[in-house]
């Protein structure tokens, strides 16, 4: 029975069966010219000196493709902050991966975008922080960002990349969602991702400035539904709703360790980009261990696989195979326990408390942000 020690087990020791990952987020740097107050990077940012080299990424991409990954999302920070981005992209294509480039559009010149085209970028996702210069520049904390982004979008169209617009929505811009859809269409986007701010990390520090009201959440849903009918065959709308106002939680990552993984700038491998907010969990690094071993055998990836680890009310709930108990990081943030039922679920004992706090935050009048910045000293 020598295989016993290699039987993957969840955090309670129940046997689990890892599947195969489809998609990988490669955060090649945390450096970024923008300072968005809802940045999805961890509050403790990785410094340039700790970043994996392009050749390291090449090895990781080959290991990922061998493991079953089909698509890589090359992101950051701003991936364009890496001077060797084209080399990283070329390595990903050589490994046989489909390459999505997720960018702010800031700091990538026309010549570099052409270089990225030659390197094999399949698809460009451009983030927009607002539909006008004043709002876009204030939210991104980067004067002039709007003009640069509009220029970048033109180059994307001229080169012919498929374009997705990434629009993060929150209390201060949600009412402009119809204009955002119109702008995305005008820029020739095939897709728009409308994502309500997820309140982890930086966004959690800015809850009072960003939390949407219940009315706004209803409004956004209505605009998305109408837009999907009106724009059928012309532009796809993907939507991440405001889950603090939902009945059931989101199926985060389609289930922990089931189809996706995230690699940080220094090679730390995470089941989701916010996983480091689960402070007791240890994460492994591609510098120390193969990606296949990390995926199949690491305690972090196996911790919440399957359904046996779930407490009540998840354990007896028929939705446990639909939403997997919700988001582990949100459980950590709101219940202080990563194993708990996601407190945004209406069946969670903490639900009423979470809703009351979200409503109080939504009623706040502040518009001031804590911007995302690296700490001094590096």
């Amino acid at each position, binding site marked *: 029975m020598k295989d016993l020690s290699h039987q993957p087990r969840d955090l309670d020791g129940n046997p689990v069966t890892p599947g*195969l990952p*489809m*998609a990988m987020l490669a955060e090649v740097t945390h450096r970024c010219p923008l300072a968005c107050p809802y940045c999805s990077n961890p509050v403790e940012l990785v410094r340039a000196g700790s970043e994996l080299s392009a050749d390291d990424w090449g090895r990781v991409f080959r290991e990922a*493709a*061998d*493991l*079953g990954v*089909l*698509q890589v*999302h090359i992101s950051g920070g701003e991936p364009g902050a890496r001077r060797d981005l084209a080399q990283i992209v070329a390595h990903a294509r050589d490994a*046989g991966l*489909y390459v*999505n480039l997720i960018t702010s559009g800031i700091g990538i010149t026309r010549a570099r975008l052409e270089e990225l085209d030659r390197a094999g970028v*399949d*698809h460009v*996702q451009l983030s927009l922080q607002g539909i006008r210069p004043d709002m876009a520049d204030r939210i991104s904390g980067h004067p002039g960002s709007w003009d640069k982004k509009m220029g970048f979008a033109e180059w994307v169209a001229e080169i*012919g*990349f*498929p374009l*997705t617009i990434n629009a993060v929505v929150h209390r201060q811009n949600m009412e402009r969602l119809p204009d955002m859809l119109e702008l995305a269409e005008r820029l020739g986007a*095939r*897709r728009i991702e409308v994502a309500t701010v997820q309140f982890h990390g930086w966004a959690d520090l800015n809850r009072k400035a960003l939390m949407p009201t219940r009315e706004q959440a209803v409004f956004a849903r209505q605009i998305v539904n109408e837009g999907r009918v009106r724009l*059928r*065959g*012309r*532009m*796809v709308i*993907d939507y991440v709703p405001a889950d603090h106002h939902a009945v059931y939680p989101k199926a985060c990552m389609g289930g922990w360790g089931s189809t996706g993984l995230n690699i940080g700038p220094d090679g730390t491998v995470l089941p989701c980009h916010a996983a480091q907010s689960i402070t007791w969990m240890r994460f492994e690094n591609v510098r120390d261990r193969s990606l296949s071993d990390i995926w199949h055998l690491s305690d972090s990836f196996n911790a919440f696989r399957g359904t046996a680890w779930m407490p009540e009310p998840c354990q007896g709930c028929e939705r446990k195979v639909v939403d997997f108990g919700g988001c582990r990081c949100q459980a950590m943030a709101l219940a202080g326990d990563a194993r708990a039922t996601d407190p945004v679920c209406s069946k969670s004992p903490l639900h009423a408390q979470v809703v009351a706090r979200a409503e109080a935050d939504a009623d706040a009048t502040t518009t001031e942000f804590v911007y995302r910045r690296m700490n001094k000293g590096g």
Partner: protein
Amino acid sequence: MTPLIGPHDVPYLPRGVRLQGDRVRGIRVLQAPERAMQLDQIGEAILGELDGSRSMAAIVAGLAARYQAPEEQIAGDVRDFLTGLIERRMVFVKDPT
């Protein structure tokens, strides 16, 4: 489902969408922005016919002959399959020129 393609339209895979073998799972997938879609044999057969010059009617006639199936049935399958992909912006159509 209202069709998004007529018999004389020419369907094609736009830039950023491609058929690819998945060597780990042993299947064929359609790779597209933020989507990798598993194809069954029918889907693969249909997409294999998209050459950017033949109309849907010509593609249907070709498939009907190859699989010795009634053209009306093939036409419905092809139209519904392509409409689903057009909705996802994974297939584009152009007018006959």
